[in-house]
Protein backbone atom coordinates (compact mmCIF):
# COMPACT_ATOMS: atom_id res chain seq x y z
CA UNK A 1 0.00 0.00 0.00
CA UNK A 2 1.13 3.52 -0.80
CA UNK A 3 1.55 5.53 2.39
CA UNK A 4 2.36 9.22 2.59
CA UNK A 5 3.03 9.17 6.33
CA UNK A 6 4.25 6.30 8.48
CA UNK A 7 4.79 6.63 12.18
CA UNK A 8 6.50 3.91 14.14
CA UNK A 9 6.48 3.52 17.93
CA UNK A 10 6.34 7.25 18.45
CA UNK A 11 6.51 8.72 21.95
CA UNK A 12 6.63 12.39 22.86
CA UNK A 13 7.66 13.50 26.32
CA UNK A 14 7.63 16.94 27.82
CA UNK A 15 8.72 18.32 31.14
CA UNK A 16 6.64 20.64 33.25
CA UNK A 17 7.61 21.63 36.80
CA UNK A 18 10.28 18.90 36.94
CA UNK A 19 7.79 16.21 36.04
CA UNK A 20 7.98 14.29 32.81
CA UNK A 21 4.75 13.59 31.00
CA UNK A 22 4.04 11.53 27.93
CA UNK A 23 1.78 13.48 25.55
CA UNK A 24 1.95 10.67 23.01
CA UNK A 25 2.91 7.15 23.94
CA UNK A 26 4.12 4.44 21.59
CA UNK A 27 1.80 5.21 18.71
CA UNK A 28 2.17 3.54 15.30
CA UNK A 29 0.06 3.93 12.18
CA UNK A 30 0.28 4.95 8.56
CA UNK A 31 -1.76 7.35 6.45
CA UNK A 32 -2.62 6.14 2.97
CA UNK A 33 -2.05 8.54 0.10
CA UNK A 34 -5.29 10.23 -1.00
CA UNK A 35 -7.26 9.23 2.10
CA UNK A 36 -9.35 11.39 4.43
CA UNK A 37 -8.56 10.59 8.05
CA UNK A 38 -10.05 12.15 11.17
CA UNK A 39 -8.35 12.00 14.55
CA UNK A 40 -10.81 12.52 17.40
CA UNK A 41 -9.93 13.31 20.97
CA UNK A 42 -10.81 15.68 23.79
CA UNK A 43 -8.59 18.62 24.71
CA UNK A 44 -5.39 17.33 26.25
CA UNK A 45 -5.66 13.86 24.69
CA UNK A 46 -2.38 14.43 22.85
CA UNK A 47 -3.90 14.85 19.41
CA UNK A 48 -2.31 18.26 18.76
CA UNK A 49 1.12 17.03 19.73
CA UNK A 50 0.67 14.03 17.47
CA UNK A 51 -0.39 16.33 14.62
CA UNK A 52 2.66 18.53 15.02
CA UNK A 53 4.90 15.47 14.76
CA UNK A 54 3.42 14.51 11.40
CA UNK A 55 5.25 17.29 9.55
CA UNK A 56 8.31 17.51 11.73
CA UNK A 57 7.27 20.63 13.65
CA UNK A 58 7.78 18.53 16.78
CA UNK A 59 10.34 15.72 16.77
CA UNK A 60 9.43 12.50 18.58
CA UNK A 61 11.32 11.71 21.79
CA UNK A 62 11.58 8.14 20.53
CA UNK A 63 10.36 6.36 17.43
CA UNK A 64 10.29 7.62 13.85
CA UNK A 65 7.98 9.61 11.62
CA UNK A 66 8.46 9.02 7.91
CA UNK A 67 6.99 11.40 5.34
CA UNK A 68 7.20 9.89 1.87
CA UNK A 69 9.98 7.69 3.33
CA UNK A 70 11.93 10.71 4.61
CA UNK A 71 12.60 10.72 8.34
CA UNK A 72 11.46 14.00 9.91
CA UNK A 73 14.51 13.90 12.16
CA UNK A 74 16.87 14.64 9.28
CA UNK A 75 17.70 18.35 9.37
CA UNK A 76 18.69 18.77 5.74
CA UNK A 77 15.27 17.62 4.49
CA UNK A 78 13.22 19.62 6.97
CA UNK A 79 11.88 22.10 4.39
CA UNK A 80 11.11 19.27 1.96
CA UNK A 81 9.01 17.51 4.63
CA UNK A 82 7.09 20.69 5.46
CA UNK A 83 6.38 21.29 1.80
CA UNK A 84 5.01 17.77 1.37
CA UNK A 85 2.90 17.89 4.51
CA UNK A 86 1.27 21.27 5.12
CA UNK A 87 -0.38 22.28 8.33
CA UNK A 88 -3.34 24.51 9.22
CA UNK A 89 -3.99 25.63 12.80
CA UNK A 90 -6.95 26.57 14.96
CA UNK A 91 -6.81 30.36 14.99
CA UNK A 92 -6.93 31.74 11.45
CA UNK A 93 -5.77 35.15 12.65
CA UNK A 94 -2.49 33.82 13.92
CA UNK A 95 -1.35 32.12 10.73
CA UNK A 96 -1.86 34.85 8.17
CA UNK A 97 1.28 36.85 7.57
CA UNK A 98 0.36 39.57 5.08
CA UNK A 99 -2.42 42.12 5.06
CA UNK A 100 -3.44 41.36 1.49
CA UNK A 101 -4.97 37.97 0.73
CA UNK A 102 -2.95 37.07 -2.35
CA UNK A 103 0.30 38.21 -0.79
CA UNK A 104 -0.37 35.97 2.16
CA UNK A 105 -1.04 32.96 -0.05
CA UNK A 106 2.20 33.74 -1.90
CA UNK A 107 4.24 33.52 1.32
CA UNK A 108 4.86 29.75 1.12
CA UNK A 109 5.83 29.60 -2.58
CA UNK A 110 8.04 32.68 -2.11
CA UNK A 111 9.89 30.87 0.68
CA UNK A 112 10.39 27.96 -1.69
CA UNK A 113 12.12 30.35 -4.09
CA UNK A 114 9.84 29.77 -7.06
CA UNK A 115 9.76 32.01 -10.14
CA UNK A 116 7.40 35.02 -9.76
CA UNK A 117 5.15 33.98 -12.66
CA UNK A 118 4.86 30.45 -11.28
CA UNK A 119 3.97 31.82 -7.84
CA UNK A 120 1.27 33.99 -9.44
CA UNK A 121 -0.18 30.93 -11.15
CA UNK A 122 -0.15 28.83 -7.99
CA UNK A 123 -1.66 31.58 -5.86
CA UNK A 124 -4.54 32.11 -8.29
CA UNK A 125 -5.16 28.38 -8.55
CA UNK A 126 -5.01 27.86 -4.78
CA UNK A 127 -7.44 30.72 -4.14
CA UNK A 128 -9.83 29.33 -6.74
CA UNK A 129 -9.69 25.85 -5.22
CA UNK A 130 -10.92 27.21 -1.86
CA UNK A 131 -13.40 29.59 -3.49
CA UNK A 132 -11.68 32.77 -2.36
CA UNK A 133 -10.32 34.06 -5.68
CA UNK A 134 -12.62 37.07 -5.77
CA UNK A 135 -11.18 38.22 -2.45
CA UNK A 136 -7.57 38.14 -3.59
CA UNK A 137 -7.09 41.89 -3.09
CA UNK A 138 -8.98 42.08 0.21
CA UNK A 139 -7.62 42.54 3.69
CA UNK A 140 -7.98 39.35 5.80
CA UNK A 141 -8.99 41.51 8.74
CA UNK A 142 -12.29 42.30 7.04
CA UNK A 143 -13.22 38.69 6.29
CA UNK A 144 -15.20 36.16 8.33
CA UNK A 145 -13.47 33.43 10.33
CA UNK A 146 -14.39 30.77 7.76
CA UNK A 147 -13.04 32.88 4.93
CA UNK A 148 -9.81 33.56 6.78
CA UNK A 149 -9.38 29.86 7.46
CA UNK A 150 -9.91 29.10 3.76
CA UNK A 151 -7.15 31.57 2.95
CA UNK A 152 -4.90 29.78 5.41
CA UNK A 153 -5.69 26.54 3.56
CA UNK A 154 -4.97 28.22 0.22
CA UNK A 155 -1.61 29.32 1.63
CA UNK A 156 -0.76 25.65 2.15
CA UNK A 157 -2.27 24.45 -1.16
CA UNK A 158 -0.08 26.97 -3.03
CA UNK A 159 2.97 24.95 -1.93
CA UNK A 160 1.41 21.94 -3.67
CA UNK A 161 1.64 19.58 -0.72
CA UNK A 162 0.72 15.90 -0.86
CA UNK A 163 -1.01 16.02 2.49
CA UNK A 164 -2.63 18.64 4.74
CA UNK A 165 -2.88 18.27 8.50
CA UNK A 166 -5.50 20.46 10.13
CA UNK A 167 -5.37 20.97 13.88
CA UNK A 168 -8.91 21.84 15.00
CA UNK A 169 -9.44 24.23 12.10
CA UNK A 170 -13.12 24.81 12.93
CA UNK A 171 -12.96 25.21 16.71
CA UNK A 172 -13.20 28.99 16.56
CA UNK A 173 -15.73 29.22 13.72
CA UNK A 174 -19.50 29.59 13.59
CA UNK A 175 -21.62 26.81 11.97
CA UNK A 176 -21.47 28.49 8.56
CA UNK A 177 -17.70 28.74 8.71
CA UNK A 178 -17.38 25.14 9.90
CA UNK A 179 -19.44 23.89 7.01
CA UNK A 180 -17.38 25.92 4.53
CA UNK A 181 -14.15 24.40 5.81
CA UNK A 182 -15.32 20.78 5.88
CA UNK A 183 -16.77 21.07 2.37
CA UNK A 184 -13.57 22.67 1.11
CA UNK A 185 -11.51 19.83 2.58
CA UNK A 186 -13.62 17.13 0.95
CA UNK A 187 -13.42 18.97 -2.34
CA UNK A 188 -9.62 19.23 -2.17
CA UNK A 189 -9.42 15.57 -1.22
CA UNK A 190 -11.55 14.45 -4.16
CA UNK A 191 -10.51 16.88 -6.87
CA UNK A 192 -6.84 17.34 -6.12
CA UNK A 193 -6.31 13.99 -4.45
CA UNK A 194 -4.72 15.70 -1.47
CA UNK A 195 -4.44 13.50 1.62
CA UNK A 196 -6.32 15.09 4.53
CA UNK A 197 -5.72 14.48 8.22
CA UNK A 198 -8.30 16.39 10.25
CA UNK A 199 -7.89 16.70 13.99
CA UNK A 200 -11.10 17.69 15.74
CA UNK A 201 -13.49 17.11 18.60
CA UNK A 202 -16.60 17.74 16.52
CA UNK A 203 -18.07 14.31 15.76
CA UNK A 204 -20.18 15.56 12.86
CA UNK A 205 -17.00 16.39 10.98
CA UNK A 206 -15.95 12.76 11.03
CA UNK A 207 -19.11 11.48 9.35
CA UNK A 208 -17.80 11.46 5.79
CA UNK A 209 -14.21 10.47 6.52
CA UNK A 210 -12.61 7.28 5.20
CA UNK A 211 -11.17 6.49 8.57
CA UNK A 212 -11.47 7.70 12.15
CA UNK A 213 -8.93 7.30 14.92
CA UNK A 214 -9.88 7.99 18.53
CA UNK A 215 -7.19 9.25 20.81
CA UNK A 216 -7.15 9.31 24.60
CA UNK A 217 -4.31 9.90 27.07
CA UNK A 218 -1.69 9.82 24.33
CA UNK A 219 -2.70 6.53 22.75
CA UNK A 220 -4.92 5.53 19.85
CA UNK A 221 -7.77 3.56 21.38
CA UNK A 222 -9.81 2.94 18.26
CA UNK A 223 -9.17 3.02 14.51
CA UNK A 224 -12.00 2.20 12.10
CA UNK A 225 -14.61 3.55 9.70
CA UNK A 226 -16.86 6.32 11.08
CA UNK A 227 -19.89 3.99 11.20
CA UNK A 228 -18.08 1.43 13.31
CA UNK A 229 -16.60 4.10 15.56
CA UNK A 230 -19.94 5.77 16.25
CA UNK A 231 -21.55 2.46 17.17
CA UNK A 232 -19.42 2.45 20.26
CA UNK A 233 -21.26 5.27 22.00
CA UNK A 234 -20.33 4.29 25.53
CA UNK A 235 -16.62 4.19 24.74
CA UNK A 236 -16.74 7.62 23.09
CA UNK A 237 -18.57 9.08 26.06
CA UNK A 238 -16.08 7.51 28.44
CA UNK A 239 -13.23 9.42 26.79
CA UNK A 240 -15.04 12.77 26.92
CA UNK A 241 -16.43 12.79 23.42
CA UNK A 242 -20.01 12.94 22.30
CA UNK A 243 -21.73 11.44 19.28
CA UNK A 244 -23.89 13.17 16.68
CA UNK A 245 -27.43 13.64 17.96
CA UNK A 246 -28.68 11.12 15.37
CA UNK A 247 -26.49 8.40 16.85
CA UNK A 248 -27.42 9.45 20.34
CA UNK A 249 -31.11 9.06 19.50
CA UNK A 250 -30.67 5.59 17.98
CA UNK A 251 -28.55 4.53 20.92
CA UNK A 252 -31.17 5.75 23.39
CA UNK A 253 -33.90 3.93 21.44
CA UNK A 254 -31.91 0.73 21.48
CA UNK A 255 -31.50 0.97 25.24
CA UNK A 256 -35.25 1.40 25.50
CA UNK A 257 -35.89 -1.88 23.77
CA UNK A 258 -36.20 -0.71 20.17
CA UNK A 259 -34.79 -3.11 17.61
CA UNK A 260 -33.19 -0.35 15.57
CA UNK A 261 -30.00 -0.51 13.56
CA UNK A 262 -27.32 1.82 14.93
CA UNK A 263 -24.80 1.91 12.12
CA UNK A 264 -26.30 4.87 10.28
CA UNK A 265 -25.25 8.49 10.46
CA UNK A 266 -27.25 10.93 8.36
CA UNK A 267 -30.63 12.36 9.39
CA UNK A 268 -32.25 10.72 6.38
CA UNK A 269 -30.88 7.27 7.27
CA UNK A 270 -31.82 7.73 10.91
CA UNK A 271 -35.42 8.58 10.02
CA UNK A 272 -35.58 5.53 7.74
CA UNK A 273 -34.14 3.24 10.40
CA UNK A 274 -36.72 4.43 12.93
CA UNK A 275 -39.58 4.11 10.43
CA UNK A 276 -38.45 0.58 9.59
CA UNK A 277 -38.25 -0.41 13.24
CA UNK A 278 -41.72 1.01 13.94
CA UNK A 279 -43.21 -0.96 11.04
CA UNK A 280 -41.60 -4.22 12.18
CA UNK A 281 -42.90 -4.09 15.73
Amino acid at each position, binding site marked *: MDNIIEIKNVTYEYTDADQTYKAVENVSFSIERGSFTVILGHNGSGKSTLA*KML*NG*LFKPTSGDVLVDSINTKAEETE*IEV*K*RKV*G*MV*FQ*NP*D*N*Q*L*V*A*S*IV*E*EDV*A*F*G*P*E*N*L*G*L*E*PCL*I*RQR*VDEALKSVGMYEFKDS*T*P*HHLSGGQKQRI*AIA*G*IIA*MEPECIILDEPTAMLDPVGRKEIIETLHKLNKEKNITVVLITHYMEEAENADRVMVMNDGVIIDDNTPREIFKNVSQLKAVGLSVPQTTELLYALKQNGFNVSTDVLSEEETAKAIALCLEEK
Partner: protein
Amino acid sequence: MLKDITFGQYFETRSPIHKADPRVKMVLLILAVVFIFLSQNILSLTLSFLFVMGVALASKVPLKMYFKNLKAILPIIILTTVINMFYGSKESAVLLSLWKLTITYDGLYRAFFMSLRIVLLIVVSSSLTYTTTPNDLTDAIESLLSPLKFIGLKNAVHTLALMMTIALRFIPTLVEEAQKIMNAQKARGADLESGNLKERIKALIPILIPLLISSVRRAYELAEAMECRCYNGGEGKTRMKQLKVSAVDFYLCGFTAVFCTGIILFNIFF
Protein backbone atom coordinates in the same frame (compact mmCIF):
# COMPACT_ATOMS: atom_id res chain seq x y z
CA MET B 1 -15.52 51.68 16.18
CA LEU B 2 -11.83 51.19 16.73
CA LYS B 3 -11.63 48.21 14.43
CA ASP B 4 -12.52 50.32 11.43
CA ILE B 5 -9.35 52.33 11.53
CA THR B 6 -7.64 51.81 8.25
CA PHE B 7 -4.00 51.70 8.86
CA GLY B 8 -2.03 54.27 6.90
CA GLN B 9 -3.84 56.86 4.87
CA TYR B 10 -4.38 55.21 1.53
CA PHE B 11 -7.18 56.85 -0.44
CA GLU B 12 -8.61 54.52 -3.03
CA THR B 13 -9.10 56.08 -6.46
CA ARG B 14 -7.56 55.79 -9.92
CA SER B 15 -4.91 58.29 -10.85
CA PRO B 16 -1.54 58.29 -12.64
CA ILE B 17 0.13 58.87 -9.27
CA HIS B 18 -1.60 55.80 -7.83
CA LYS B 19 -0.29 53.76 -10.70
CA ALA B 20 3.30 54.90 -10.37
CA ASP B 21 5.96 52.62 -8.92
CA PRO B 22 6.19 53.18 -5.15
CA ARG B 23 9.99 53.18 -5.30
CA VAL B 24 9.97 55.96 -7.87
CA LYS B 25 7.46 57.90 -5.80
CA MET B 26 9.55 57.54 -2.70
CA VAL B 27 12.77 58.71 -4.33
CA LEU B 28 11.00 61.59 -6.05
CA LEU B 29 9.41 62.62 -2.76
CA ILE B 30 12.83 62.84 -1.14
CA LEU B 31 14.06 64.97 -4.05
CA ALA B 32 11.00 67.21 -3.89
CA VAL B 33 11.41 67.73 -0.15
CA VAL B 34 15.06 68.74 -0.60
CA PHE B 35 14.23 71.16 -3.38
CA ILE B 36 11.32 72.73 -1.57
CA PHE B 37 13.75 73.47 1.23
CA LEU B 38 16.16 74.94 -1.27
CA SER B 39 13.55 77.40 -2.51
CA GLN B 40 15.21 80.66 -1.49
CA ASN B 41 13.21 83.33 -3.20
CA ILE B 42 9.67 84.14 -4.13
CA LEU B 43 10.05 82.80 -7.65
CA SER B 44 11.32 79.38 -6.65
CA LEU B 45 8.73 79.18 -3.93
CA THR B 46 6.03 79.92 -6.48
CA LEU B 47 7.43 77.14 -8.63
CA SER B 48 7.37 74.75 -5.65
CA PHE B 49 3.80 75.77 -5.00
CA LEU B 50 2.82 75.04 -8.59
CA PHE B 51 4.65 71.69 -8.54
CA VAL B 52 2.97 70.57 -5.33
CA MET B 53 -0.45 71.72 -6.52
CA GLY B 54 0.15 69.85 -9.77
CA VAL B 55 0.94 66.64 -7.88
CA ALA B 56 -2.02 67.07 -5.53
CA LEU B 57 -4.43 67.59 -8.40
CA ALA B 58 -3.00 64.72 -10.43
CA SER B 59 -3.46 62.38 -7.44
CA LYS B 60 -7.23 62.87 -7.75
CA VAL B 61 -7.43 62.76 -3.97
CA PRO B 62 -9.97 65.43 -2.91
CA LEU B 63 -8.17 68.56 -1.72
CA LYS B 64 -10.12 68.46 1.53
CA MET B 65 -8.19 65.31 2.42
CA TYR B 66 -5.00 67.35 2.19
CA PHE B 67 -6.54 70.09 4.30
CA LYS B 68 -7.37 67.46 6.90
CA ASN B 69 -3.68 66.65 7.25
CA LEU B 70 -2.81 70.34 7.37
CA LYS B 71 -5.33 70.91 10.11
CA ALA B 72 -3.59 68.29 12.20
CA ILE B 73 -0.37 70.29 12.21
CA LEU B 74 -2.00 73.71 12.33
CA PRO B 75 -0.43 74.51 15.74
CA ILE B 76 3.03 73.95 14.29
CA ILE B 77 2.29 76.20 11.33
CA ILE B 78 0.98 78.95 13.61
CA LEU B 79 3.94 78.65 15.94
CA THR B 80 6.38 78.89 13.02
CA THR B 81 4.56 81.91 11.68
CA VAL B 82 4.56 83.72 15.03
CA ILE B 83 8.19 83.01 15.86
CA ASN B 84 9.42 84.02 12.45
CA MET B 85 7.44 87.22 12.55
CA PHE B 86 9.54 88.51 15.43
CA TYR B 87 12.87 87.42 14.04
CA GLY B 88 12.99 89.58 10.94
CA SER B 89 16.14 91.54 10.07
CA LYS B 90 16.46 94.62 12.30
CA GLU B 91 17.23 96.86 9.32
CA SER B 92 13.91 96.21 7.70
CA ALA B 93 11.07 98.70 7.97
CA VAL B 94 9.02 98.36 11.12
CA LEU B 95 5.43 97.36 10.59
CA LEU B 96 4.25 97.21 14.14
CA SER B 97 5.84 97.62 17.53
CA LEU B 98 4.37 96.17 20.68
CA TRP B 99 6.22 96.70 23.91
CA LYS B 100 9.65 95.09 23.25
CA LEU B 101 8.52 93.08 20.25
CA THR B 102 8.73 94.47 16.79
CA ILE B 103 7.33 93.02 13.63
CA THR B 104 9.22 94.05 10.54
CA TYR B 105 8.24 93.61 6.92
CA ASP B 106 11.12 91.19 6.63
CA GLY B 107 9.78 89.18 9.54
CA LEU B 108 6.38 88.98 7.94
CA TYR B 109 7.96 87.84 4.71
CA ARG B 110 9.96 85.15 6.50
CA ALA B 111 6.94 83.96 8.41
CA PHE B 112 4.98 83.60 5.22
CA PHE B 113 7.89 81.83 3.54
CA MET B 114 8.47 79.32 6.29
CA SER B 115 4.85 78.42 6.83
CA LEU B 116 4.20 78.02 3.11
CA ARG B 117 7.19 75.68 2.94
CA ILE B 118 5.81 73.55 5.74
CA VAL B 119 2.42 73.44 4.07
CA LEU B 120 4.00 72.32 0.81
CA LEU B 121 6.04 69.63 2.56
CA ILE B 122 2.95 68.24 4.24
CA VAL B 123 0.93 68.24 1.06
CA VAL B 124 3.64 66.59 -1.03
CA SER B 125 4.29 63.91 1.63
CA SER B 126 0.56 63.25 1.94
CA SER B 127 0.42 62.74 -1.80
CA LEU B 128 2.66 59.71 -1.29
CA THR B 129 0.74 58.21 1.62
CA TYR B 130 -2.64 58.88 0.00
CA THR B 131 -1.69 57.16 -3.24
CA THR B 132 0.39 54.24 -1.96
CA THR B 133 -0.78 51.35 0.22
CA PRO B 134 1.32 50.55 3.29
CA ASN B 135 2.15 47.24 1.63
CA ASP B 136 3.51 48.93 -1.45
CA LEU B 137 5.52 51.25 0.76
CA THR B 138 7.01 48.23 2.51
CA ASP B 139 7.90 46.67 -0.82
CA ALA B 140 9.47 49.94 -1.95
CA ILE B 141 11.56 50.21 1.20
CA GLU B 142 12.70 46.62 0.83
CA SER B 143 13.64 47.17 -2.78
CA LEU B 144 15.39 50.50 -2.15
CA LEU B 145 17.39 49.02 0.71
CA SER B 146 18.35 45.91 -1.23
CA PRO B 147 21.85 47.23 -2.06
CA LEU B 148 22.60 46.64 1.64
CA LYS B 149 22.76 42.96 0.76
CA PHE B 150 26.14 43.56 -0.80
CA ILE B 151 27.70 44.92 2.35
CA GLY B 152 27.06 41.81 4.42
CA LEU B 153 23.50 42.57 5.57
CA LYS B 154 22.13 39.77 3.47
CA ASN B 155 18.98 38.89 5.37
CA ALA B 156 18.60 42.14 7.29
CA VAL B 157 16.59 43.76 4.51
CA HIS B 158 14.31 40.77 4.18
CA THR B 159 13.78 40.57 7.91
CA LEU B 160 13.02 44.27 8.13
CA ALA B 161 10.47 44.03 5.33
CA LEU B 162 8.87 40.96 6.91
CA MET B 163 8.66 42.74 10.24
CA MET B 164 6.89 45.67 8.63
CA THR B 165 4.51 43.35 6.78
CA ILE B 166 3.62 41.46 9.97
CA ALA B 167 3.19 44.72 11.89
CA LEU B 168 0.77 46.00 9.25
CA ARG B 169 -1.08 42.72 9.37
CA PHE B 170 -1.41 42.56 13.17
CA ILE B 171 -2.05 46.16 14.18
CA PRO B 172 -5.79 46.03 13.37
CA THR B 173 -6.08 42.62 15.05
CA LEU B 174 -4.45 43.86 18.24
CA VAL B 175 -6.46 47.08 18.25
CA GLU B 176 -9.62 45.01 18.03
CA GLU B 177 -8.41 42.72 20.77
CA ALA B 178 -7.57 45.65 23.04
CA GLN B 179 -11.08 46.95 22.51
CA LYS B 180 -12.56 43.57 23.43
CA ILE B 181 -10.50 43.26 26.61
CA MET B 182 -11.38 46.81 27.55
CA ASN B 183 -15.07 46.03 27.18
CA ALA B 184 -14.71 42.81 29.16
CA GLN B 185 -13.02 44.60 32.06
CA LYS B 186 -15.53 47.43 31.94
CA ALA B 187 -18.24 44.79 32.20
CA ARG B 188 -16.50 43.67 35.39
CA GLY B 189 -16.87 47.18 36.74
CA ALA B 190 -13.39 48.47 35.89
CA ASP B 191 -13.32 52.24 35.91
CA LEU B 192 -11.15 53.49 33.07
CA GLU B 193 -12.50 57.00 32.77
CA SER B 194 -12.10 58.68 36.11
CA GLY B 195 -9.46 59.19 38.78
CA ASN B 196 -6.08 60.92 38.79
CA LEU B 197 -3.18 59.98 36.54
CA LYS B 198 -1.81 57.35 38.91
CA GLU B 199 -5.18 55.67 39.26
CA ARG B 200 -5.71 55.72 35.55
CA ILE B 201 -2.38 54.10 34.86
CA LYS B 202 -3.18 51.46 37.46
CA ALA B 203 -6.53 50.89 35.77
CA LEU B 204 -4.69 49.95 32.57
CA ILE B 205 -3.07 46.89 34.13
CA PRO B 206 -6.15 44.66 33.66
CA ILE B 207 -6.02 45.55 29.97
CA LEU B 208 -2.30 45.49 29.32
CA ILE B 209 -1.57 42.14 30.96
CA PRO B 210 -4.13 40.14 28.96
CA LEU B 211 -3.10 42.00 25.81
CA LEU B 212 0.55 41.18 26.41
CA ILE B 213 -0.18 37.54 27.13
CA SER B 214 -2.29 37.18 24.02
CA SER B 215 0.33 38.91 21.86
CA VAL B 216 2.98 36.48 23.05
CA ARG B 217 0.64 33.57 22.30
CA ARG B 218 -0.08 34.97 18.85
CA ALA B 219 3.62 35.44 18.15
CA TYR B 220 4.32 31.85 19.13
CA GLU B 221 1.53 30.49 16.95
CA LEU B 222 2.54 32.69 14.03
CA ALA B 223 6.11 31.45 14.28
CA GLU B 224 4.88 27.84 14.09
CA ALA B 225 2.63 28.64 11.15
CA MET B 226 5.48 30.37 9.33
CA GLU B 227 7.75 27.43 9.93
CA CYS B 228 5.07 25.17 8.42
CA ARG B 229 5.06 27.41 5.38
CA CYS B 230 8.73 26.70 4.80
CA TYR B 231 10.06 30.00 6.18
CA ASN B 232 13.75 29.70 6.91
CA GLY B 233 14.88 33.26 7.46
CA GLY B 234 14.51 34.50 3.92
CA GLU B 235 17.24 32.35 2.37
CA GLY B 236 16.62 32.05 -1.37
CA LYS B 237 13.26 33.76 -1.10
CA THR B 238 11.60 35.16 -4.21
CA ARG B 239 8.75 37.63 -4.58
CA MET B 240 5.50 37.15 -6.43
CA LYS B 241 4.98 40.85 -7.00
CA GLN B 242 7.75 42.42 -8.99
CA LEU B 243 7.74 46.19 -8.94
CA LYS B 244 7.79 47.47 -12.50
CA VAL B 245 8.67 50.91 -13.79
CA SER B 246 6.16 52.07 -16.39
CA ALA B 247 5.53 55.10 -18.62
CA VAL B 248 3.81 56.97 -15.78
CA ASP B 249 7.02 56.84 -13.79
CA PHE B 250 8.98 58.45 -16.59
CA TYR B 251 6.47 61.29 -16.81
CA LEU B 252 6.63 61.72 -13.07
CA CYS B 253 10.44 61.77 -13.15
CA GLY B 254 10.43 64.28 -16.01
CA PHE B 255 7.98 66.52 -14.18
CA THR B 256 10.09 66.44 -11.03
CA ALA B 257 13.29 67.01 -13.01
CA VAL B 258 11.81 70.14 -14.57
CA PHE B 259 10.85 71.36 -11.11
CA CYS B 260 14.32 70.72 -9.65
CA THR B 261 16.06 72.39 -12.57
CA GLY B 262 13.75 75.36 -12.23
CA ILE B 263 14.61 75.77 -8.57
CA ILE B 264 18.33 75.61 -9.28
CA LEU B 265 18.04 78.19 -12.04
CA PHE B 266 15.89 80.56 -9.99
CA ASN B 267 18.22 80.27 -7.04
CA ILE B 268 21.29 81.02 -9.14
CA PHE B 269 19.97 83.77 -11.36
CA PHE B 270 17.57 85.70 -9.21
